[in-house]
């Protein structure tokens, strides 16, 4: 049976993850690009890991780390009364980790492709740092920000392995559309599976198409 709840959980999860990463990533990119430290490069490569690791590995370490018997899990439980496993906030945290490289790398690429002389020109034209940020940096990295946002959102919607291990498929709380699809297939409920799959496909396609349309810049190979 097709339910709206898993679709809503997916949408809420993707929105929360995207919003958090939109706030967290820009300052980190700024710090990263202002240093040449090997430690920064090392820390950065750790954040890329979720892109190359099997999602179950990431999910497993979340389980192991956040369980009430592990130090981190116990600390959060005793100190803040936070039990992140099998809860929506825990899902958001895991989603942020898994989707981090998508937002971060998009923003970093956009910043790196920005000609520093544009900023310097702005300074020599009498504009300070704040005005330069809004009038030069922001408009020029906007396609990168939009691309990162769409990519992050689409990836968060489609996440399966980590979500299953950390969230545990609790209806209305942690059961996302991709898990509902999996369960529908397992119980031979193909009409529901088709419905979930179609919604996920349409969302992803719309996102990627929108991204490609926004990033058209009129350049063509001769």
């Amino acid at each position: 049976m097709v339910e709206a709840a898993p679709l809503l959980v997916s949408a809420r999860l993707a929105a929360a993850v995207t919003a958090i990463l939109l706030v967290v990533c820009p300052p980190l990119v700024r710090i990263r690009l202002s240093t040449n430290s090997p430690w920064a490069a090392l820390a950065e490569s750790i954040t890329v890991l979720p892109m190359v690791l099997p999602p179950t590995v990431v999910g497993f370490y979340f389980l192991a780390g956040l369980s009430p018997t592990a130090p981190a899990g116990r600390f959060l439980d005793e100190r803040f009364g936070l039990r992140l496993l099998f809860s929506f906030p825990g899902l958001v945290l895991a989603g942020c980790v898994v989707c981090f490289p998508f937002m971060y790398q998009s923003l970093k690429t956009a910043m790196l492709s920005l000609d520093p002389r544009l900023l310097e020109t702005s300074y020599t034209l009498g504009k300070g740092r704040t005005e330069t940020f809004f009038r030069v940096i922001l408009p020029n990295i906007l396609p990168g920000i939009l691309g990162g946002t769409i990519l992050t959102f689409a990836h968060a919607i489609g996440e399966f392995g980590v979500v299953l291990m950390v969230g545990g498929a609790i209806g209305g709380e942690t059961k996302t559309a991709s898990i509902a699809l999996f369960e529908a297939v397992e119980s031979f409920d193909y009409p529901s599976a088709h419905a979930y799959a179609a919604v996920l496909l349409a969302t992803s396609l719309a996102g990627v198409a929108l991204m490609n349309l926004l990033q058209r810049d009129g350049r063509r190979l001769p």
Partner: protein
Amino acid sequence: MDGIEFRIRKTLTGRGGRFPFRAAGRFAHGRVSGFAGPSGSGKTTLLRTLAGLEKPDAGEISFGGETWFSSGNRRSVPAWKRSAGLVFQDYALFPHLSVLGNARFGAVDREAAEEALELVGLADLRSRRPRELSGGQRQRAALARALAARPRVLLLDEPFSALDEELRARLADELGNLLARIGITAVLVSHLRSDLERLCSSVATAAEAERLFDEAPPARESRSSIPLRIVEAKSLYVG
């Protein structure tokens, strides 16, 4: 004492490793001055330092008696408060803005921008994007953008290097006439002395500026720009 006076020292990193860049001199008020030197001699660094985009390790820079930089007084006026327009070698036009948008960026008002475009002959192309312009048009757009902000000093880094031979000669004459007509204090930098001599009222070389730095007494104990006046030697100016 009018114009730009400078006496700066900065360690630069070039192809042959680190080397000290030393230069002193004066660029006259309301005149077009040239600064020539081989590539890697610190010409661009000099312009960037005058514009406030880089700080010298030590030294002093003043404009019209106003101190822009003084290592002795620990004073450095930020680039956006110097009113020194810099036209980069590859122009650095804002790709997200039209020609008019570029000109209006630092302009006091729309009229100033329109006027500047009129001056460089780009009024008809005002709604074009930078990528839709030819090399010569880009240069003029960058020049208009700098002029529309009504700078007190105009700094041009290798203004003709991105242009072909024919355009080079024509634009050099055009630019010379234009700058002379506005009567702006301008400094042009090039590795080709011949380019500068066509349109500058005086041309200094990196070697001369270095000699002036070495001849003048060290400015370290000074708390003002006085030593710069001593530096004002005839040898710096040709014509």
